[in-house]
């Protein structure tokens, strides 16, 4: 709190105390001072809200200014990220389709049977031969044992030297189907009801059905005590159904391998596209280095919100400013009433003292604000003067120094149409800050009448050769002591560039490590200064 605030506060308290001690007006005084208290609280609250809204408006304006130039980049980034997401999804989907567990598929999918057809054919051949041999032996045995009845059944076939098929072949279902259709599906000929072929089939089926009936105990001795031929024939039939699958396994395997390979190719292509998009993203982010990826990404969504917040804050400012004015007027009215009450009392003197301090305070406050405004205007003017000098050619814009609601100041670069230059190149940015620095230095010299040197560390590192030479020329003409550390006067092989040095009219020293020194011992490093001119 400054003296004027302090004096105003103290004199007001003394004035109010004097008023309260005046018994004559105590009732009115209480009323008025209560009103004033309420109004002052209201005013304080309104001002607080006003400050917050001004800060918000300023913050969102700044953010919007910064983002304005990044709007396009933000939209591009959004597109790139969307494409990347979709590519990553596609890649993942393709990768999930790749199944190269070939080793387990050999068993789980029975791929290992891919060469089994030949083995199975051999099996069928062997089982057929075995079955046939068994039947021949059985027939011979029965014949020998004089079983004429049994012999008759097959005598017709045997006459022609043909051994009939096993009673299990064709199976019961197939036999029934052929009889029903009156067609022999083994030889591919019709077998009309009543024909020899038809009766043959019916007899064969009955024989099969009979063989499945429970056998009555008999004392007869049969040649074959076991019947493994049935088991082996049944296996031949049941596994025979899958022969087409076995024959097709090589193709299945080939298809799976080709499928995996094409998915892998697909993944590789997607990966290449991802790399391209990521490269684009890197370039985009490098071109917009003022904002991080997250900021740029959010920018798109934020622009709408920030416009809204800024508008809300600006509307609120108008409302609150009106309210502030109105409360200030009310306070003035109440204060006038209060002061009137004092006129005819002992508190009159205190009132006058307070009025004086209050006016002094207002005057100081106004003056301070005016001085700040004037100073910033002057600073701006001087800074722009230096900016022009440091940038002889090309666009350089106008420096604006803006006071923010929180009391600090912000340096901006605009063009003459008040368009904010969001991303000036590094050299322009450097000269902008340098110009403000020179301006501050110049103004302090005027005020304090004593100067201090400006020290720059490699200020021209971002400058093109022409700009660098302009810079040194400007610096050498500035009536100010400047100490500049630079490598600009060294050629590529580390020697002094005499052309550059000759063109300057200022004192130049060469600063370098004193030799010899120990590469591994920091304490041996010393600086050597040599006057060049």
């Amino acid at each position, binding site marked *: 709190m400054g003296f004027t605030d302090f004096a105003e506060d103290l004199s007001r308290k003394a004035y109010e105390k004097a008023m309260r001690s005046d018994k004559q007006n105590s009732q009115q005084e209480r009323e008025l001072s209560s009103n004033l208290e309420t109004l002052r609280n209201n005013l304080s609250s309104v001002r607080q809200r006003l400050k917050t809204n001004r800060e918000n408006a300023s913050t969102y304006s700044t953010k919007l200014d910064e983002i304005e130039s990044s709007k396009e980049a933000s939209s591009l980034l959004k597109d790139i990220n969307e494409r990347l997401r979709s590519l990553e999804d596609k890649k993942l989907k393709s990768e999930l389709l790749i199944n*190269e567990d*070939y*080793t*387990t*598929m*050999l*068993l*789980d*999918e*029975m*791929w*290992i*049977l*891919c*060469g*089994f057809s*030949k*083995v*199975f054919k*051999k*099996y069928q051949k*062997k*089982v057929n031969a*075995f079955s046939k*041999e*068994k039947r021949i*032996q059985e027939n011979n045995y029965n014949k020998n044992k004089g079983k004429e009845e049994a012999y008759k059944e097959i005598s017709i076939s045997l006459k022609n030297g043909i051994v009939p098929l096993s009673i299990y072949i064709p199976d019961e279902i197939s036999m029934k189907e052929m009889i029903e259709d009156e067609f022999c599906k083994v030889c591919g000929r019709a077998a009309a009801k009543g024909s020899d072929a038809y009766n043959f089939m019916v007899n064969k089926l009955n024989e099969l059905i009979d063989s499945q009936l429970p056998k009555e105990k008999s004392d007869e001795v049969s*040649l*074959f*005590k*076991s*019947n*493994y*031929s049935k*088991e*082996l024939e049944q*296996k031949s039939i049941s*596994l025979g159904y899958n022969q087409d699958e076995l024959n097709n396994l*090589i193709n299945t*395997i080939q298809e799976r*391998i080709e499928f995996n390979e094409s998915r892998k190719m697909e993944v590789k292509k997607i990966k290449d596209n991802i790399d391209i998009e990521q490269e684009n993203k890197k370039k985009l982010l490098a071109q917009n280095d003022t904002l991080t990826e997250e900021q740029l990404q959010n920018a798109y969504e934020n622009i709408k919100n920030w416009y809204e917040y800024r508008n809300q804050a600006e509307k609120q400012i108008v409302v609150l400013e009106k309210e502030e004015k109105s409360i200030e007027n009310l306070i003035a009215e109440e204060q006038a009433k209060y002061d009137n009450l004092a006129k005819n009392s002992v508190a009159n003197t205190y009132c006058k003292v307070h009025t004086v301090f209050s006016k002094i305070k207002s005057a100081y406050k106004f003056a301070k604000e005016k001085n700040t405004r004037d100073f910033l205007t002057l600073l701006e003017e001087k800074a722009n003067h230096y900016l022009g000098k440091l940038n002889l050619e090309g666009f350089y814009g106008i420096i604006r120094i803006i006071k923010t609601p929180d009391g600090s100041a912000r340096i901006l670069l605009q063009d003459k149409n008040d368009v904010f230059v969001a991303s000036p190149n590094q050299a322009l940015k450097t000269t902008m800050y340098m110009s403000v620095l020179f301006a501050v230095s110049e103004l302090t010299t005027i005020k304090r009448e004593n100067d201090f040197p400006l020290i720059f560390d490699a200020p021209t590192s971002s400058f093109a050769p022409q700009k660098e030479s302009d810079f040194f020329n400007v610096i050498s003409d500035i009536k100010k002591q400047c100490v500049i550390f630079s490598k600009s006067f060294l050629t590529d092989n580390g020697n002094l560039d005499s052309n550059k040095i000759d063109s300057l009219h200022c004192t130049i020293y060469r600063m370098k490590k004193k030799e010899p020194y120990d590469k591994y011992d920091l304490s041996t490093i010393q600086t050597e200064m040599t006057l060049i001119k």
Partner: protein
Amino acid sequence: MAVDNLFDVWAKRNPKWEEHFEDSIIRVYTDYGVGSSELTSAKGKALGAGYELYIYAFFIGLYANKRRDLVGDTKTFGQPIQFWGNLDSKKFRKAYPRLREYIFVALIANTDELDLIALEKSEISVSQAVDLLKDTMEQYANYGFYFIKEKIKENPNYFYKTSGFLDLILNLVVAPKSSADEIETL
């Protein structure tokens, strides 16, 4: 009394293999002696139970049509053939019980020593017949194990390639066409 199927009697057997393959091959590519095969991939093993490699070795011998007698100390797996391929409970794997039937069929087809007529006449017992089938199986698998060992000797990483096991089978199966592959003339 119900007569056992030849297949069922055979499936109750536990085929033997030469013991030295345990460390040199079986434990390298399977979870043999480790337990559950659920963690197969986590352990970097290509196969689950030890018998899976046995089946693989058997098919190598079968397709190469080569057998090798077992010598020296032998071992068997914990599970008889009837449980081979019952992987329903294992994660990411499918059961393959039918493969047992195909192995059986291959043994019947290739065990010339087995006289089926004699078996049918009970001149030889089922057990003797199954012994012969088991011998054939062991000899085919034994050849397969030696073949795998040889492959590893040539290239220790051969079976670590995704398609290592498959390639070997395909090489044996997709042989240059010979007249034997032609459809037999009637």
